Every structure is written in structure tokens, then in C-alpha cells.
């Protein structure tokens, strides 16, 4: 607003305003040059290269064979595991995260619980990657503390369970998925207006009925949206799975394709990376659509 007013004032004074203003606009845009140059070099151009590279042979000719390679062994298996792992960890982390966020906000909960959960979630959501992998090797690896404890109780989880398996890996991912869900879900549940709860209870609704007919319908788009976000979060994870020794994962395959001696094949890496971008863009679009729907009721 203030900017507009100033503009008209100087226009009255200067007379030849439009040209001056547009010139100063160009000067202003010049100030953005360092930022856009940086982002181009380190983000936009590499991404463009990768997308173009996915359709090129090593010599530079156009080809679709890199793309069709995605559909041949071993990649479909890797995609299947990546997608299943992301979905399972999003469901587990998202489901429990929702329940915990709701419990933390219950007014009967002692006062220290809420800040404790929030600050600990902030910490845990960032405790990922290599250290997290080793933390779970110490917990549920073959010699892990919990594994040994269960053995003493006569419960042998191996070989049915393994940290490289779908469930084991999803359990590890819980460590960053759960806190992220708690942190993002708390404001959503807080957005459920107190008046709705009171009106429901005045009309004789039980807590269950409130959630069944009011709470869940309002919250569902946010809940799904956040789970989609968690899905994307798990899908692009690499270091944790690599530390656990997972063998078949899209991110690990890409790393092997650009790093390995025998497996070296940058063209396939481009194609897989492009496929990852496509999947992540889909998750973001779904997330954005659900968010838009969610904002209808929630502040």
C-alpha cells in the first residue's frame, strides 16, 4: 500500500513517471541476479540436464531406451519396495502421530507433557540418516539391546524380522515420520473449533460421536495430506536405508549407478532420477489439493 502511495506522489512531482518507474523496476530486478544465478547453477540447470539426459544416449542422440530400462529388472522391484516402504511408514507414522497429537492436546494431560513432546519431536525429526541407522542396529539388530532382551524372555524375533525388511525398515523410518506428523498435526487439531466440540456435547454427542460426525470429516483432508507428505519424505530417503543395508531401493540403485564400478550407468541414473521427480511432483500436487480442501474448514 505504502509503496503505491509513494509511487503516485513521486509521479505527481516528476511528471515522466511511467518510464522512471519501469526503469527502477529493472534496477530492482537486477538485485535478484545473484540469487537467480546461484539457483540456476546449483539447482535449475542440473535438474534440466538430468531431465534431458534421461532421453539421451551416452553419445547424445535421442533415445527412449533409458526410460524403458526402468521397466526392466532390477528396477521394478526397487520401485515396488520404495513405494511400499514409503506407504507403510507414512501409515504407521501418520496414524500414530495423529493419535498422539490428539492425546497431547487433551486437557487432562499434565502440563509438562505437551512442550516435552513438541520439543522432543523437533529433535527426533532431525535425528535421521547414518546415526539413526546405527541407533536401530543397536536396538533391533541381531545383537541389539531389545533383541537380546526379548531373547532372554524366550522371544526370538530373528529370522522372521529384519531391519532390511519392509516392516523393520518402516519401523526405523518411524523415528522421523512420527515426530514430523505430531508437529504438523497439532496445529490442525487445534484448528478444530472449541465451539463445535461444545455444541456437539450440548446436543448429547459422545466423544466418539463427535469424532465420527464432526472431527474426522473436517480433519480428513489434512490427515491424508500430511500422510502424503510423509510418503514423499520417506520416498526420497537414502542414508538411513543405506546404513541399514537395504538392498533394493530406488535411491540406493541410483547411488550405485553413478558410483559403482560394475553398475556404472549414468543414463539409467538419469531415468530413475526423473522417475523419482515425477513421483514426488505427484505427491506434492495431491498434497496441495488436499490442503486446499482442508482450508475450507480449518483456520
Amino acid at each position, binding site marked *: 500500500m505504502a509503496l503505491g502511495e509513494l509511487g503516485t506522489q513521486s509521479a505527481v512531482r516528476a511528471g515522466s513517471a511511467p518510464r522512471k518507474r519501469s526503469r527502477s523496476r529493472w534496477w*530492482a*530486478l537486477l*538485485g535478484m541476479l*545473484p540469487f537467480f544465478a546461484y*539457483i540456476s547453477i*546449483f*539447482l535449475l*540447470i*542440473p*535438474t534440466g540436464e538430468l531431465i534431458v539426459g534421461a532421453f539421451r544416449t551416452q553419445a547424445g542422440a535421442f533415445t527412449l531406451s533409458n526410460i524403458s530400462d526402468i521397466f526392466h529388472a532390477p528396477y521394478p522391484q526397487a520401485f515396488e519396495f520404495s513405494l511400499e516402504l514409503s506407504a507403510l511408514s507414512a501409515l504407521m507414522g501418520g496414524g*500414530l502421530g495423529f493419535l498422539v497429537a490428539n*492425546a497431547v492436546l*487433551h*486437557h*487432562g*494431560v499434565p502440563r509438562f507433557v505437551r512442550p516435552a*513432546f513438541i*520439543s522432543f519431536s*523437533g*529433535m527426533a*525429526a*532431525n*535425528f*535421521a*540418516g*547414518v*546415526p539413526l541407522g*546405527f*541407533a*536401530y*542396529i*543397536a*536396538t533391533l539388530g541381531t*545383537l541389539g539391546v*531389545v533383541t537380546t532382551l526379548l531373547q532372554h524372555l524366550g522371544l526370538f524375533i530373528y529370522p522372521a524380522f529384519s531391519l532390511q525388511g519392509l516392516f523393520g525398515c518402516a519401523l526405523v523410518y518411524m*523415528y*522421523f515420520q*512420527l*515426530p*514430523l506428523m505430531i*508437529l504438523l498435526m497439532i496445529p490442525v487439531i487445534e484448528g478444530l473449533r*472449541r465451539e463445535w466440540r*461444545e455444541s456437539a*456435547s450440548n446436543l448429547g454427542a459422545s466423544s466418539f460421536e463427535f469424532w465420527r460426525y464432526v472431527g474426522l470429516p473436517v480433519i480428513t483432508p489434512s490427515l491424508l495430506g500430511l500422510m502424503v507428505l510423509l510418503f514423499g*519424505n520417506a520416498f*526420497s530417503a*537414502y*542414508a538411513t536405508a*543405506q546404513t541399514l543395508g537395504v538392498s533394493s531401493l530406488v*535411491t540406493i540403485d541410483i*547411488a550405485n549407478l*553413478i*558410483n559403482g564400478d560394475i553398475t556404472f550407468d*549414468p543414463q539409467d541414473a*538419469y531415468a530413475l*532420477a526423473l522417475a*523419482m*521427480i515425477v513421483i*514426488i511432483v505427484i505427491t*506434492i500436487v495431491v498434497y496441495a489439493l488436499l490442503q486446499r480442501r482442508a482450508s475450507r474448514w480449518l483456520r
Partner: protein
Amino acid sequence: MAQVTAVAEARPSSHRFRRARSRIPVWHLTWLVLAALVFLVPIYSVVQFSLAGIGPGQSPFHWYLTVFDDPMFRASFWLSIQISLETVAVSLVLMVPTVFWVHLRLPGLRAVMDLISILPFVVPPIVLVVGLLPFLKNITWLFVRPEVLSLIYVVFALPFLYRALDAGLRAIDLRTLVDAAESLGARMPRTLLRVILPNLRAAIIGGSLLTIAIAMGEYTVASLLEFNTFSVYTYTVGTSTAYEGVALSFISFIFVWGAMLALYLLGRGGRGAAAVAITDYK
């Protein structure tokens, strides 16, 4: 009766009423305990495990002492610290004037900035490195220097620093401050340095802590570019001797915990930290 309690509830001062009516349902308690177990059992196990597997006559902190004695430990730790600080420096020099400029002169570009700030999420580290590698391999002098990691981490830190600075600038009356500084004869760089920066202190410190957390923990790019940063070192050591890897994990846990505690004490708490978690340096 229900109405009376509802009214009592609306007033935050009447704790006695609230306590009396609402005992925590058992299932709520179950979820809280379950989450606490998910959070705490791995930490407990890390401590236990890092103190186990020790021969007779050795210190209970054997694995920690072994790690501390390793010159590679110090080298990699310092390398990571150095890279983190460089990342923070480059990020701030690039982002603070840019976001300031957008707010002051080009508010129309905000939507573009918002879009750019989600791009690092669309292009996770493993994907970005695929696109960057051929380009970097041609610039040999840069490719062999660890500073290249800082330059790449600036991109990963961008969404979080941008959001912190954007929120910080929204909270102050930028126009008035700049006009006041101008009318007192200050030029733009001086205004930025002496008027705007002090007002953005919390946002800058918060954004910098998040940046450090990202740069310290990053593994993907560092390992693929073959630099021995702290997380790459942890991985290498841990795959040969799990006990040492777990001891190193505990050290980085303490480090992350410290950074997040500082962030929490800054008063931004959960939400600022939540932002970090959306990075994919996992």
C-alpha cells in the same frame, strides 16, 4: 450441567473445574506411552550398546576413547564443522539481501520465491547429485575441494532459511524502518546492516541452526563426492565396528539435540524445527 462445565472450560483461569472433569482416557495414555517408547528405546539402546562388548580391564567408555583417539575422527568432525559454517555464511550472504529486496521492492516475486523454496523438496539430494555430477566433474579445481559441499548444501538449506527470513520480515514494519533510515541519511547497505539485520536476529539465528543441522548430518552428497565428512566417517567406521559406529551416533545425537534445544530456547520451538524435518538428507 454440561453447559455450566462448557462455560467453565472456556475460561482458562478455572483449572480446578477442568481437572475435575477430565481424566485422561486410557487409550490416550496408551498412545502417549507408545510414542515415548518409540522415541526413547533407541536412545537407551544406543547408550547401552556403546558401553557393551568391552574386554576385561578396559574402560567402560572404551569405544568412545577409541573413537576420540582416531585422528580421522577429529579430521572429519572439523571438516563437517567447517563445511557447516561455510554453508551458513554463503546462505546468509545470498539469502538475507535477496529476501529483504523481495519484501521491499518486488513483493510480486514472493510467489516465485515460494515456488523456488519448495524445489529442493522436489529434487532430493540423490537426484540433484545425478544432475550435478557431470557438470562438477568438468570443473576439477572445485570438484576436489570440500567447499563444493557447502555450495550444494546452500540449496538444501534454502527452504528453511527462506521461510525463517520471510516470517521474520513479515513481522517487522519494513517500509517504515527503511524510510526512517533513509530520511536520516543512511544508504541501503548501511540500512540493511544496521537497521534490518538486528531486527532479524532471531530469524537469522534460527535459520542458521537449521542450516548447521542439515550440513552436519548430510550423507548422500558427501559420500557420492567422496569427502570424509563426519557422517561419512561414522558410516565407514560403523560398518566395520558396529560399537564404534553406535558411539559416534550417540555423539551426533547429542549434537543435534543441542542444536534443537538452542532452537527451542529461541522460542520458535516445534514449528521451526518441523520445517527441518521435511528436508531429505535422511
